[in-house]
């Protein structure tokens, strides 16, 4: 049974966004990290890159699989989680604690297109 955190927004491609003010912390869900297996690399954008809702911004790789990262919101990257460069396995340890990018959200209304914890729980069939 995967961990799901209340109060976050979830996408169908298994990313979450935790909103604090106009900043969103984006990562992959616990369910996604479990499906992927041991994460060996996280391909991240650069600070100041623009991301758009539903568009790819990077990828997570395990030994025999790779999964594109789709941004749940649009905005500008203000920080990337550099700890993942040295230790990508942190995503497996705690996917919600170890966000991947921090984005300044440009359109808060896009959050309405995402699921809440309950809906995401139903979405992954748990």
């Amino acid at each position, binding site marked *: 049974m995967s961990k799901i955190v209340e109060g976050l927004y979830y996408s169908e491609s298994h990313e979450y966004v935790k909103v604090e003010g106009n900043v969103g912390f984006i990562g992959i869900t616990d369910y996604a990290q479990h499906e992927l297996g041991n994460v*060996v*690399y996280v*391909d991240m954008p650069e600070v100041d890159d623009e991301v758009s809702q539903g568009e790819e911004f990077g*990828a997570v*790789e*395990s*030994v*025999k*699989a*790779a999964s*594109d990262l789709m941004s749940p919101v649009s905005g500008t990257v203000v920080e990337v989680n550099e700890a993942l460069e040295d230790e990508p396995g942190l995503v497996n340890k705690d996917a919600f604690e170890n966000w991947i990018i921090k984005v300044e959200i440009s359109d808060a209304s896009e959050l309405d297109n995402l699921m809440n914890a309950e809906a995401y729980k139903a979405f992954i069939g748990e």
Partner: protein
Amino acid sequence: MTYKYFPHTDEDVRSMLDKCGLKSLDDLYQDIPDELVLHRDYDLPEAMSEIEVRNLFNELGNYNEKLNCMIGAGCYDHYSPSVINAILSRSEFLTSYTPYQAEISQGTLQYIFEYQSMMAALTGMEVSNASMYDGCTATAEAMMMAIANAKKKNKVLISDTLNPIVTRVVETYAKFHGIVVEHIAAVDGVTSREDFEKKIAVGDVAGVIVAAPNFYGIVEDYTGWADLCHDNKALFIMNCNASALGVIKTPGEWGADVAVGDGQSLGIPMNFGGPYVGYLCTSKKLIRKMPGRIVGATKDMDGKRTFVLTLQAREQHIRREKATSNICSNQSLMALYVTIYLSLMGKQGLKDVNALSYSNAHYLAEQIAKLDKFELAYPEKPFLHEFAVKYHGDIDYLQEAMLEAGIQFGLKLDNETLLLCATETLTKDMIDDAIMICQGIQDFNDAAID
């Protein structure tokens, strides 16, 4: 129905068909609409016995001529130690598949690891992939790597002193991949620094490709080039003659981001153009952008040091259309060729080969420049074993006369320029013979004029 490659007897076929609930071999194809089935034999010759096959190839071989090679231009006639073919013909290497099943492929995986180590050392770079098809396609892959790395830029600069055979392939890939190629002019046989500075200053360049030694055999000075590339967020890519890297300044020392080229000069037979091996080396920072296979060290369940294909999540079989390259395999057996060559030659051998080639080429250059109708095209420029000469006479006639004597006398670049090459496989006598023929033509012409 007996044939040496088909072990089934009629009885075998019958019992196997029985097991499948079928009556004839044709029944295996009953799902194919009849109009799509070929109802005749191929229009090809009947089977040949081994004796006949040998005779045929002997006969075809008679239409070829092994010449004394004074031509290079991307393929070099170097010494090839006899050990190499003996080991390459071992069917445990020759008939094995790509080493996905690491437990029974340590032979392949280990030599690829050795190959990567040697190529990294030779180029002065940090990492190498497991090899690519040839130097041309490796250079094209390096170009695409620069584009992928730059994300939003789609232009590369290519020096006009890069071998045009390589440029031709790189430009083909560029055309289809949507990459803009601009040329950096050549002035007096070397890349124009001024033109380079002008073109990179425009700011939209993802990569810059230069050659060492260049097409005319000249070893160029790239001081400051890498910095200028990096200031403009472009990758500096050097296409190098692998053998020459045993002595000339390495891409690593020049500060290049990618070293590419053909490994043929490391003893691989000329073989009418292939198989050769492309190499591609880069920095650790760019390893995930590097195309092709990579072998890494790891441990097995018992803690034994082992080798395995790694970073596969970059590759086509996982990333599909998002892969860094569509390349599936490497040129494994030829990577083994190079690995054994470099093992045998070691530090000193590589230097000796270059020293011998240098001596032969410079002797040839000096002798030929003494003749009236010849002059070195770029007399002030340093070269190793290849150089361009101007000939104020009929080049076609000269080359024909050399052919008569069993010599391939260089590559004709234009009506008055020849690109000549001499490696360690030539002897002083062979060179003297060629000079004598040049002299002879000159004397004959002089006599005719008189």
